């Protein structure tokens, strides 16, 4: 049993022979048992990364290990919900859950799947084609959870849900994570949506990993500083972003030592951290978790 849910080294994916790079030289490690926010702007490569981890796409370069094995071998232990929540429109809810049971013999949990569907007040005899976007999301999540996965990959899971359903389903996911130690990776381009529930962050921008690690560690590694524009330079520290408004300079830095006098320091919010990194593609990459371990390579 590996303690690593996903581990990438030099991971790249290119679509078509001359196509653009969706992902380039990605390296990170996600330990098991985490609830990870996969954040980045539209088109950053979040969906590609999730599809690679689910064993649905083959990487062009590099290596990807999922639950200590190849993504293809890990497929039975991985749950995946694609962004557009594909389901067979001609089946009823009851049929599609029965399909889940038939296709996952030996590890299907009907109670877990029905619990998710029941929360939405849905008739089992309703056909998938007559469901709303949010209701489809609920059924797709029920299929993924009924499989009792060790790793759950969710691509924009909450986008179609109303706030109430979002809150309720997030609660269901967190209960799943707490009860079975399921590792969950959720992508979103809205940071605030995931901030309260996640303890790990993967920030993707321009096809590269920009930040990777425990959210607390990442926050602790950064300081927002404010001072007069002519005060001592910040050269000794890694500056992610700095802005001058009038005579005042505000910057987000990774302090390398004690701050010089004249700077007021405060803790950044996660959103500030993410936005600062996305606005400044030149900012150095930070991964607080080791990128490769001897144990998981074995």
């Amino acid at each position, binding site marked *: 049993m590996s303690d690593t849910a996903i581990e990438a080294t030099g991971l790249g994916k290119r679509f078509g022979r001359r196509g653009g790079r969706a992902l380039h030289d990605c390296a990170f490690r996600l330990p098991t048992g985490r609830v990870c926010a996969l954040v980045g702007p539209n088109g950053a490569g979040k969906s590609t990364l999730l*599809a690679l981890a*689910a*064993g*649905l*796409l*083959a*990487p062009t370069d590099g290596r990807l290990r999922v*639950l*200590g*094995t*190849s*993504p*293809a*071998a*890990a*497929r*039975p*232990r*991985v*749950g*995946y919900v*694609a962004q*557009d929540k*594909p*389901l*067979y429109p*001609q*089946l009823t809810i009851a*049929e599609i859950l029965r*399909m*889940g049971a*038939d*296709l*996952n*013999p*030996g590890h299907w949990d009907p109670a877990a799947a029905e619990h998710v569907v029941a929360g939405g007040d849905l008739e089992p005899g309703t056909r998938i084609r007559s469901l709303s976007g949010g209701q489809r999301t609920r059924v*797709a999540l029920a*299929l*993924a959870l009924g*499989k009792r996965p060790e790793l759950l990959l969710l691509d924009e899971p909450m986008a179609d849900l109303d706030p109430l359903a979002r809150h309720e389903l997030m609660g269901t996911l967190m209960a799943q994570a707490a009860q079975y130690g399921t590792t969950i990776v959720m992508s979103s381009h809205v940071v605030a949506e995931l901030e309260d529930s996640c303890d790990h962050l993967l920030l993707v921008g321009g096809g590269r990993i920009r930040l990777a690690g425990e959210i607390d560690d990442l926050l602790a590694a950064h300081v927002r500083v404010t001072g007069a524009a002519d005060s001592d330079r910040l050269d000794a520290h890694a500056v992610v972003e700095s802005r001058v408004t009038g005579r005042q300079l505000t910057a987000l830095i990774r302090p390398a030592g004690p701050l010089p006098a004249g700077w007021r320091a405060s803790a950044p919010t996660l959103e500030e951290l993410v936005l600062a990194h996305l606005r400044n593609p030149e900012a150095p990459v930070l991964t607080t978790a080791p990128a490769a371990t001897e144990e998981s390579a074995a």
Partner: protein
Amino acid sequence: MTTDPTVPRPRTARWLLRLHRPALYGFAALVIVLAGLELALAGPLADAAAAGWRQFDACHTSICSYDQAAILRYKDYYEYATYALDALPFLVAAWAGAALTGRELETGTARLSWTQGISPARWLTVRLVLPAALVAAATCLLVWLHHRAWAAGRGRIDTASGWYTLVTFHANGPTIAALALAGLAAGTLAGLLLRRTLPALVLGVLVTVGVAVLAQQLMPHLWPTVTRVTTLQQGGIGSAIVLDQGLLSKSGAHLPMPNCTTAAACDAAFAKASGYYTVYHPYAHYWPLQLTTTALLLAITALLALASCLVLRRLTGALRAAGTAVEAKDALVTA
């Protein structure tokens, strides 16, 4: 993490049948209607038409009474049945390209299957093998019934289609069953390549048309031909698959058929000839030609299925957990 042999296998076939239930019912209805038509052709329709021809042939006066309607009915229904059977492979190709793979990849339900306990290898294998079994069984039954209906008219109905005509040759033998399997594989491959419903439907049909044309072009060359010389009075051989025909000069050289427009020109051309030569396949070559063409079509089917496998592997990476991809390929080819 290793797969436990005691764990039951996912019931993939059941869900494939459920997802394509309307197509399955439609296909079953088509097969039943065609089978009924072939049975009627072999029995009452052929008998009525033969009786009509007997009346006609026995008549030597200028005004005769014979059952013309029965003769025309047999001829029309025979043509409907033959064309319908010959069109079946293209219908299978259209369905396979559009519904079996194209739509699943377009809407993303293929990915749903791959993350719901069906490996891509199994997903493709079931999609090729199960419809192949159904299509092969149905077309073989229809071909046998069609051959029966054709044989019922042979020698009794003067307008009955000859064994050598394009539509009857294929509808009468296993070539059409093999072409239907090629259509299934071509449609599947088109869906995997294009990943969209409508373009895959079109490409699947086009590839099948290409395969059919290729097989038709190669068919006469798959078995050694017979060359026969006939006298000018006997005329050239017509009721056969003819590859080449012309005049035989008095010195024994082969001359092309004269393209003459006036009686004088024709007389001049025939004056040089001693007879006709014909390079052809007689009826005795019917089964060798059927079987070699079927083998050719099955080989093309295997190549298309193998290509589907490779395209899917390029799309998703390893088709199975460990190095059993070769095994899956073998299963596809033998299926």
